[in-house]
């Protein structure tokens, strides 16, 4: 019986012969694959633009903290064994943040925070705003950046320095266009040096002004302003916004055990995430994916029809060749296989050209145009695989037709 390598060699030679024959009608072959070429290229470009746009949207949403969980302390009901009525005391400690990062694989960073409404004064002007105390880490994971001046760091925190960052709104209200950096403001009644103004953050989805804030180091806020040993909240950054749910469970368990909450008792904290932003983020990604998928399906259908049409013509034209091959000993399945593979080769050629053209066009657009593009290599690979499967699929009809021809009739064809 025939050996495997010989069979493979035969198969390769058959394909080579097919290629030579396809090359007979260069223009037609080129036209037949051009539909698929343009379709695949268009999908790649669209995917690139779409991915770029999606990336930009996601970056912005993420800047607003879609990967953050906020553990907010509920008022403690018992402090030092006594029932408390006043809801100013919490059980949450700064160390709880470190514990969460240490114990949960899904948390990459955590930052405790305190906040308090109070009045800030400069000269004769004053403004009611929100004081936030947090760590240098907290600035980072909450995307608080300096527009002018500098941010505070851990050294400022450990030294409990009275340094403050003003939100843009506070800066405008107090300084009205002057550069606040270097000036001394009074936060409550304590003097602070303004070391920076934060970059504009806008509002959250609820319309709350994120720039109406004064940010100071956590330790300074706790010891010099509020005189408390607990914190109001812990911000926890997830490894990915997709893992927020498991992270939330981890955080809940870790905190319940740290705070020695008995089962059956309500959590002395609430865990919040940016649900609205997350929905927006996932919605945007889904809409973009659907658009690209839809275009891809359309492109493949159009490309497939082009190849199908040319293969049908080819079978009709090459009837005598089919008859000859049958006379020389080709079985029906040999003929069928030949035409299926010719179709697949056309499709792969078109798909490859389309991927190359698409990636080149996306690259050119990224350089020349105002778009941010993410070249979708995975889409390119997928395009190739889909093209080949498409070729195999649409090849079945013409190939079956070719295989059904009676050798005698086929040889007589003109």
């Amino acid at each position, binding site marked *: *019986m*025939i*050996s495997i390598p*010989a069979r493979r060699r*035969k198969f390769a*030679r*058959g394909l080579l*012969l097919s290629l*030579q*024959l396809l*090359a*007979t009608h260069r223009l037609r072959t080129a036209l037949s694959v051009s539909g698929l070429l343009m379709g695949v290229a268009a999908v790649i470009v669209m995917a690139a633009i779409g991915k770029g746009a999606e990336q930009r949207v996601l970056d912005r949403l993420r800047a607003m903290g879609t990967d953050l969980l906020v553990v907010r302390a509920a008022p403690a009901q018992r402090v030092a064994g006594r029932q408390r009525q006043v809801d100013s005391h919490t059980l949450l400690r700064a160390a709880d943040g470190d514990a969460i990062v240490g114990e949960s694989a899904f948390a990459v960073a955590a930052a405790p925070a305190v906040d308090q409404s109070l009045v800030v004064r400069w000269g004769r002007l004053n403004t009611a705003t929100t004081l936030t105390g947090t760590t240098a880490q907290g600035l980072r994971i909450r995307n608080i950046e300096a527009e002018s001046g500098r941010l505070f760091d851990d050294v400022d925190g450990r030294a409990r320095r009275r340094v403050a960052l003003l939100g843009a709104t506070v800066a405008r209200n107090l300084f009205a266009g002057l550069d606040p950096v270097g000036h001394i403001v009074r936060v409550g009644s304590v003097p602070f040096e303004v070391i920076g103004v934060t970059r504009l953050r806008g509002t959250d989805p609820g319309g709350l002004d994120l720039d109406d804030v004064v940010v100071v180091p956590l330790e300074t806020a706790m010891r010099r302003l509020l005189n408390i040993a607990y914190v109001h909240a812990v911000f926890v950054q997830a490894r990915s916004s997709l893992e927020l749910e498991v992270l939330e469970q981890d955080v809940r368990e870790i905190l319940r055990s740290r705070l020695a909450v008995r089962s059956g008792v309500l959590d002395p904290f609430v865990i919040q995430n940016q649900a609205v932003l997350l929905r927006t983020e996932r919605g945007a990604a889904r809409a973009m994916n659907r658009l690209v998928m839809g275009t891809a399906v359309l492109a493949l259908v159009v490309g497939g029809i082009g190849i199908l049409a040319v293969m049908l013509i080819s079978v009709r034209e090459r009837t*005598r*060749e089919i*008859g*000859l*091959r*049958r*006379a*020389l*000993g*080709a*079985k*029906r399945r*040999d003929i069928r296989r030949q035409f299926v593979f010719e179709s697949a080769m056309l499709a792969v050629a078109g798909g490859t050209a389309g991927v190359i053209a698409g990636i080149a066009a996306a690259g050119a657009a990224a350089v020349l145009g105002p778009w941010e593009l993410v070249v979708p290599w995975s889409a390119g690979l997928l395009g190739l695989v889909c093209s080949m499967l498409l070729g195999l699929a649409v090849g079945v009809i013409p190939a079956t037709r070719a295989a059904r021809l009676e*050798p*005698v009739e086929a*040889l007589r064809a003109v």
Partner: protein
Amino acid sequence: MIFAQSLIKSYRKGALVTNVLKGVTFRVAQGEFVAIMGPSGSGKSTLLNILGLLDRPDGGRYLLGGADFSSADDDALSAARNRTIGFVFQQFHLLERASALRNVTLPLLYADENTGDEMVLAERALEAVGLSDRGDYLPSELSGGQQQRVAIARALINDPALILADEPTGNLDAQNATEILDIFRRLADSARTVVLVTHDRGVAERADRILAFEDGRIVADEAMQSRPRASTAKVP
């Protein structure tokens, strides 16, 4: 080699039934060179198709090399065509885009057995028809006679016992026709069976034996007196 008994074949076109073969009986021994001669439309091509396992008779018996293929499936027929029969057509039927060598190797694509280096086999086959220096030429770069010799080389590559030729000289001038017939003569002399279909008495007379065919029947079975040797003109 060939045993045909009362072969019947008819074609139906709508209500019209045409009886093409009306009981054909003959034998061909191995190494014989037989011409089936008759006017066009006499059914000789249909007979050749049946002999070549391209078509099946409606009735009668046909044995090829002692084997009965009347109940064989398409795969078995294909395999037998590949292994034991070499076809030569009036129109040559070469693939225009493929070189002479590639054309000659075509039957090897469908051979079940691995008979050795295909290119060596193809070159040997081309050499046998005197075209060893034309292997890389495309059919369009060859004369009609040369194209038909490529086709004969293709028919020979699987070393078949039977060569079936349908008006092989029909598209050739006298000089080329003579050369082609010389090749058939030599093949028959080397124990291959050659069956040739023609309407041309001059061509038929180069065979050992003429079966005169008319209206679906053999009307005469005539042995040539002196077996003509291959003509002295050397095939280039």
